């Protein structure tokens, strides 16, 4: 008896947030709870949904980047049948089977951020990682005067974002034959691993002029390592999360990954699709850099950010 | 005596372990229908001989003959093929298997498919065996739910199930009550008349002379004598075992005056089923706590010590109320020598010194700073005082013999400032010489003003050693016997059900 009362109490407590739901329900899949990029994307999605009078539900694996968990979450969501899904695969290839399940359930899905290797999508919203890597690397090499020694800190080997960014880095290096690539090692997109790798690289190479990190977390790890060893090098990263470091002049530049906007426009695309409004098959942001020169405009705290108008972005 | 060749004969068996010659050219024979007693001090080689017999050890030298024919015993399977079955002192039972599964462990009846078991037949046959032993327990009962005596009976059923022609028993009565012992003896006589040969290891002189057809004495891995029961008195036998005369009567000066009250227990009950316990222990006396196995004696000890949760009643130590965990008990001056020295008494991988120091650490090192040198010094003094035979105080205690281990378990309390010693089965599995030493030690404790509450299954010990004794039955105190009333008959009368 007591148990039943308790159960219904819990039920009411759990149901209450759903009671106010109106408009379209959008399920948003991100990779993990720890990377700030995905926090930005989720914030963007929430903001867009609010603007358009829809609601979001977030699905994040409890173990970071867990394929089986994201797969289970898809299966669970398919039962609940949200109106649309905004989807970042934890692994671009392994999650194709999951996308197929969404397709089979006839739920429209917008792919953002990391492009899935297969499946049918209403649209893809993201940044071309190759272009972004290339532009950021070019900026660094220009600042080095087209010569000197550099190292690359790679992200997770299997990730397509990493592969494309590294391809971009290497293309830029090809354009600058006087710049010597000393080493390219992985920091698995993690700050502490990048820090250790950098410490060790500094032992092997007495002169490092520039560091190309495949994301900002690793770039900040590199900056810490440099500071601790009292050495100087120009560092670039990608993702646009290292704003403070740029402001402080420690990070030369970061490729703007526009996480918040990805969340915004991915969600808007999904809602527009539901409302039978036109949506392009692909919505790519241009490869912009955040540098000392334009950093001021990026200093808005996450909870104050507001999604751009769809028309403003898509017109371009 | 017997003109036919012996059922099994061992000639010149030797077994060497690093540093020890466990068996040194031992010859031994057992005839069909004979109970052959094997006696000797701990470490004399009885267990090694038994393990050679059942194939657990391989002899380095020597020959085996079965009905006069030369055979090999290299593995338990060889031994089993010869009809040898062993009842071990430390049980070879699996707690979460049923009685039937335990009885037939390793000899399961094949079922319809390869690798499967014919459960129906197994339980049927197990039931028959239990009936034979007069044991009325479902064969599907898991062994961990049984009491020690019942487990011993399962162990015996296990041996019987092998249709053994040669049955080896290692102190089978150690955990049995007198009534159960009687039943076991009746069964042994039955087996004997069926022509089964029985090798019986025992420390109890009464059993040796009552049951034995022949007695073989081992000492230091050698056979020192093989004789008939009529050829020696118990004292002579003990002399053969220890190689010197030992006074078996443990004579002591019984407590004359009434000492100060150390422990008073009022209406104590605990989660382990003891109820309404009232008892007292005074300074300078050894108080017995006797009764059948399973009557709740150890449970009373554990309740007083705080090892089991007390559910009611009062414990007064020096007239002050006491209640709490073992650490509180130790701080209040209670010492417990538990029933099982390996499971509860010793940290086997740690050194003699570490074990001896453990309860008294905070007394020896009040600042909590531990000095290894000082600990070695204290332990060394204890080792000398208790005559513990060990090359060094740093030796892991698992390498000591049973008697010496028991001395460590008692000895560790000498530095803890205890005034009340609760000693549970002080002489289980140890030899005659060590027994005398341990009783001398207990006597020394009480003469220095401590009080001792002693639990023993050997009634003769209670009668010889205690100033008075409580007798337990079914978790309650059934009665009290003063020094004058104390006799084995009186204990039995009180301890046994009146049906």
């Amino acid at each position, binding site marked *: 008896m007591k148990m039943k009362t308790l159960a219904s109490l819990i039920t009411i407590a759990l149901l209450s947030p759903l009671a106010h739901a109106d408009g379209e329900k959008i399920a948003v899949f991100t990779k993990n*709870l720890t990377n700030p990029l995905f926090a930005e994307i989720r914030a963007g999605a929430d903001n867009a949904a609010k603007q358009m009078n829809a609601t979001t539900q977030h699905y994040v694996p409890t173990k970071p980047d867990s394929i089986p968990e994201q797969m289970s979450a898809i299966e669970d969501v398919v039962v609940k049948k949200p109106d649309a899904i905004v989807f970042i695969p934890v692994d671009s290839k392994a999650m194709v089977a999951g996308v197929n399940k969404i397709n089979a359930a006839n739920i429209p899905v917008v792919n953002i951020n990391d492009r899935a290797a297969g499946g049918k999508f209403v649209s893809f919203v993201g940044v071309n990682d190759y272009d972004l890597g290339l532009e950021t690397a070019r900026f660094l090499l220009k600042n080095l005067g087209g010569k000197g020694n550099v190292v690359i800190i790679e992200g997770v080997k*299997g990730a397509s974002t990493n592969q494309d960014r590294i391809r971009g880095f290497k293309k830029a290096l090809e354009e600058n034959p006087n710049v010597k690539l000393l080493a390219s090692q992985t920091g698995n997109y993690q700050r502490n691993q990048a820090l250790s790798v950098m410490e060790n690289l500094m032992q092997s190479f007495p002169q490092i002029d520039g560091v190309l990190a495949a994301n900002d977390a690793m770039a900040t790890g590199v900056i810490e390592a440099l500071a601790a060893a009292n050495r100087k090098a120009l560092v670039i990263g990608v993702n646009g999360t290292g704003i403070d470091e740029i402001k402080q002049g420690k990070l030369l530049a970061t490729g703007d990954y526009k996480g918040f906007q990805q969340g915004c426009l991915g969600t808007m695309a999904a809602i527009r699709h539901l409302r039978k409004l036109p949506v392009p098959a692909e919505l790519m942001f241009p490869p912009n850099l955040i540098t000392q020169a334009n950093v001021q405009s990026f200093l808005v705290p996450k909870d104050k950010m507001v999604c751009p108008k769809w028309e403003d972005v898509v017109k371009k | 005596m017997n003109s036919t060749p012996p059922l099994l004969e061992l000639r010149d068996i030797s077994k060497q372990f690093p540093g020890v010659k466990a068996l040194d050219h031992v010859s031994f024979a057992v005839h069909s229908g004979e109970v052959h007693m094997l006696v000797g001090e701990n470490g004399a080689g009885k267990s090694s001989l038994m393990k050679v017999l059942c194939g657990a050890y391989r002899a380095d030298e020597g020959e085996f003959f079965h009905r006069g024919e030369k055979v090999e015993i290299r593995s338990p399977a060889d031994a089993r093929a010869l009809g040898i079955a062993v009842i*071990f002192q430390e049980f070879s039972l699996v707690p979460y298997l049923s009685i039937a599964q335990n009885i037939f462990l390793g000899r399961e009846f094949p079922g319809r498919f390869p690798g499967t078991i014919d459960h129906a037949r197994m339980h049927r046959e197990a039931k028959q065996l239990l009936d034979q032993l007069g044991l009325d327990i479902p064969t599907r009962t898991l062994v961990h739910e049984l009491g020690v005596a019942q487990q011993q009976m399962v162990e015996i059923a296990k041996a019987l199930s092998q249709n053994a022609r040669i049955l080896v028993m290692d102190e089978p009565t150690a955990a049995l009550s007198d009534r159960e012992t009687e039943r076991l003896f009746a069964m042994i006589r039955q087996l004997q008349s069926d022509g089964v040969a029985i090798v019986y290891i025992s420390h109890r002189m009464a059993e040796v002379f009552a049951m034995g057809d022949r007695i073989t004495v081992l000492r230091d891995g050698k056979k020192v004598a093989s004789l008939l029961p009529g050829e020696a008195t118990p004292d002579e036998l003990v002399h053969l075992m220890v190689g010197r005369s030992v006074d078996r009567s443990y004579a002591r000066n019984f407590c004359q005056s009434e000492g100060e009250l150390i422990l008073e227990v009022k209406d104590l009950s605990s989660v382990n089923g003891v109820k309404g316990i009232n008892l007292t222990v005074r300074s300078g006396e050894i108080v017995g706590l006797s009764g059948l196995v399973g009557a709740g004696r150890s449970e009373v000890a554990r309740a007083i010590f705080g090892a089991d949760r007390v559910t009611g009643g009062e414990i007064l130590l020096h007239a002050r109320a006491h209640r709490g965990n073992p650490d509180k008990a130790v701080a209040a001056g209670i010492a417990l020598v538990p029933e099982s020295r390996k499971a509860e008494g010793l940290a086997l991988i740690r050194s003699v010194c570490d074990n001896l120091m453990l309860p008294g650490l905070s007394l020896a090192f009040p600042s909590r700073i531990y000095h290894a040198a000082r600990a070695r010094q204290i332990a060394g003094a204890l080792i000398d005082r208790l005559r513990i035979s060990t090359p060094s105080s740093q030796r892991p205690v698992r390498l000591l013999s049973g008697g010496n281990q028991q001395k460590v378990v008692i000895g560790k309390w000498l530095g803890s400032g205890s005034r009340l010693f609760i000693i549970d089965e002080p002489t289980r599995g140890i030899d005659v010489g060590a027994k005398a030493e341990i009783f001398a030690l207990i006597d020394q404790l009480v003469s220095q003003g401590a009080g001792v509450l002693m639990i023993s299954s050997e009634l003769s010990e209670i009668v010889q050693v205690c100033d008075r004794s409580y007798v337990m039955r079914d978790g309650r105190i059934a009665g009290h016997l003063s020094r004058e009333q104390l006799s084995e008959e009186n204990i039995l009368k009180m301890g046994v059900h009146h049906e």
Partner: protein
Amino acid sequence: MSENSIATPPGTTSTFSAELRRVPGVAWILGLLVLVFALASRDFLSAPNLLNIGLQSVILLILALPMTMIIMTEGVDISMGAVLTLASVVLAWVLAHDGSLPLALAAALVTGLAFGVGNGMLVALLKMPPFVVTLGTMGVAQGLALLATDGQSIVVSNDSLQAVYAGSFMGIPQTLLIGAVVYALSHWLLYQTRFGTYVFALGGNPDALGLAGIRANYYLIAVYAFGGLMAGLAALILTSRMSSGHPTAAIGMEFDAIAAVVVGGTSFEHGNGWLFGTLLGVLAVGALRNGLNLLTVASSVQVSCIGLLVIVALLIDGFKGKK
């Protein structure tokens, strides 16, 4: 009678009422979870959703069943997730190189078996502590998976592979069938065969086996080998589910399996194990994750809930068994 008498464990003493008396904490929790989720979400008790819970639980179940036996021998195998992952990579690799599905499955099973036998031999023959042995082999398996794939997924487009997870046989989803077969097999092994009897003995009293003339080591190796083999089998389902092999796909899953086993009432001591409890434990984890997803509970809360499930289940058992 006295409070402390330990309730009769099931299996060997298999009257139904005896089993009921031993209802462990996990069963109450599973019941409560089902009740709450059923009240809170219309979808929870729907057939497709129950099917989801079943499907999602199968891989964990296939790991947890042999894990139950391993834990009963007072051992543990923390390499299972990594071995599963490696076997999945091997399976995908064979398929990607035009191997047939039976060949690929055989390769995965052999991979799992090899690690299982290796674990078993190190544990049994060298008397090395199981946790350490399998911590080492976990690194080896994980490393091999990473090296073999260079950190990337191996994508497989093989219809027969996809049919394993999604397909059904006589109206029953194949994945569930595989799970049921593995459960039946494990149950048969543990309760009907000599092997099972010796598993109880390995944890309860290994000396008894030696004295009975049984080569305990063979059976100890066999227990770990069974674990490895099942990891290889689970790889079939995992790979089919993802249509690809990924070098970190199931890393850490062994801890979930161990938790499910212990929550299900199997103890690390004395060979006291219960296979049905493991099934309940796995289902409780599955129902919890699924239900929280259906209620769209915040992910951070979900993370804590899984830990709470484990702790609360043990607390209930602890209070019930308190002396």
